[in-house]
Each structure stands twice: as structure tokens, then as C-alpha cells.
């Protein structure tokens, strides 16, 4: 007889080991576009985070996908794991040139094909 409970999912190690990033400055991006940075002080299995000395990067009010350099201080915060999209060390970020082809070029190609 097999019961539903006889096969339990083995617990896997988390893909990202938060212990490594504790006390380091990390950048966190949320669903909906918010972006914050702070020192990682705590976490749990559901990816909720505790950040200290944190700041939020304010977005362009006319284009909410664009993050500006303007910031506001938040301090000690809890970030909801359900809303987190991305976590990365804040030191290792570097802006690169736009890898996407020019929008005008792509449109011209499309017209030529039809």
C-alpha cells in the first residue's frame, strides 16, 4: 500500500547561499520594478531578507522601468521573498553598452521581408 506521504521531496540545498553574502552590500530588485540596496543581515527559507542601511533607487515617474541615480534612505528593512526578482552583490555591477540592435534597423529589415 502506498500512501501519499511515503514519498517526500528531499530537501535541496538553496541555489544561492545567503550565508556567503551576510554583512555584504546586495542589490535587490522586486516585481513591479522597485530596486533597493542594503547590507544583508538576515534571511529565511522563503527568501525574505533583512537589509540594513538600505536605500531605494527612485524611478523616473514618467517611465517606471527606468531607475535613476536618485535614492531615498530606508534604513533597516524586511524584503518580502515573494516579491523578489533578483539579488546580486552591489559591488559587481557594471553598465555595458546597449547590446540590442537599433530599433530603426530592425523595423527596416522587417519591411524588406514582407
Amino acid at each position, binding site marked *: 500500500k502506498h500512501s501519499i506521504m511515503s514519498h517526500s521531496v528531499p530537501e535541496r540545498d538553496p541555489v544561492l547561499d545567503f*550565508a556567503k553574502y*551576510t*554583512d555584504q552590500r546586495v542589490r535587490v530588485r*522586486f*516585481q*513591479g520594478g*522597485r530596486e*533597493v540596496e542594503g547590507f544583508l*543581515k*538576515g*534571511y*529565511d527559507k522563503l527568501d*525574505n*531578507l*533583512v537589509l540594513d542601511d538600505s536605500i*531605494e533607487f*527612485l524611478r523616473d*515617474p*514618467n517611465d517606471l522601468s527606468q531607475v535613476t541615480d*536618485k*535614492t*531615498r*534612505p*530606508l*534604513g*533597516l*528593512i*524586511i*524584503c*518580502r521573498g*515573494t*516579491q523578489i526578482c533578483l539579488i546580486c552583490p552591489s559591488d559587481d555591477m557594471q553598465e555595458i553598452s546597449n547590446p540590442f540592435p537599433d530599433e530603426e534597423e530592425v523595423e527596416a529589415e522587417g519591411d524588406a521581408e514582407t
Partner: protein
Amino acid sequence: TRKMASVIRIQPLALIDKCIGSKIWIIMKSNKELVGTLRGFDEYVNMVLDDVTEYDITPNGIKETQLDQILLNGSNICMLVPGGDPTFST
């Protein structure tokens, strides 16, 4: 011999629990923020708040609404700030 790392790690939900009874500032996924006194929360971080000021952030200004006691649905809560002292700009 192995050294024990004496890292003091803060559990996020434990920190929220410590806020019960005091002011907390909630930042939603959208452009809405609330400040109120935390009465309690559940495992989904739905929250019961007292004496709430709701801030609607628009490019033209911030609209404030006062609410007595609310149950705030946790599904859109992005960040929680103990202390409830909001700063809206630099």
C-alpha cells in the same frame, strides 16, 4: 578544531514580530505606502494595522488617507520598515 562563526543572523519574520505594538512603514509593490501600528500578522504576512495613514504616491504629489483599523492583504507587500518614519524623497 573548527571555529564557530559567531554570526548574529536576524530572522525576517522574527523582526516583524518584534514590531508588534509599534509603528511600521509598509511599502507596497505599487506606488502606495502605509504607516500604522502593527497589531499582528500571519504566515502570509497579511497584517492587522491600527491608526493607519495611507500614502498614494503620484508624480503630482502624495495623497493621504486616514484609516482606523485595517487588514492589509500581504500579497502585494514589498518591504516593511520598523519604526514607521517614512521618507518619500532624497
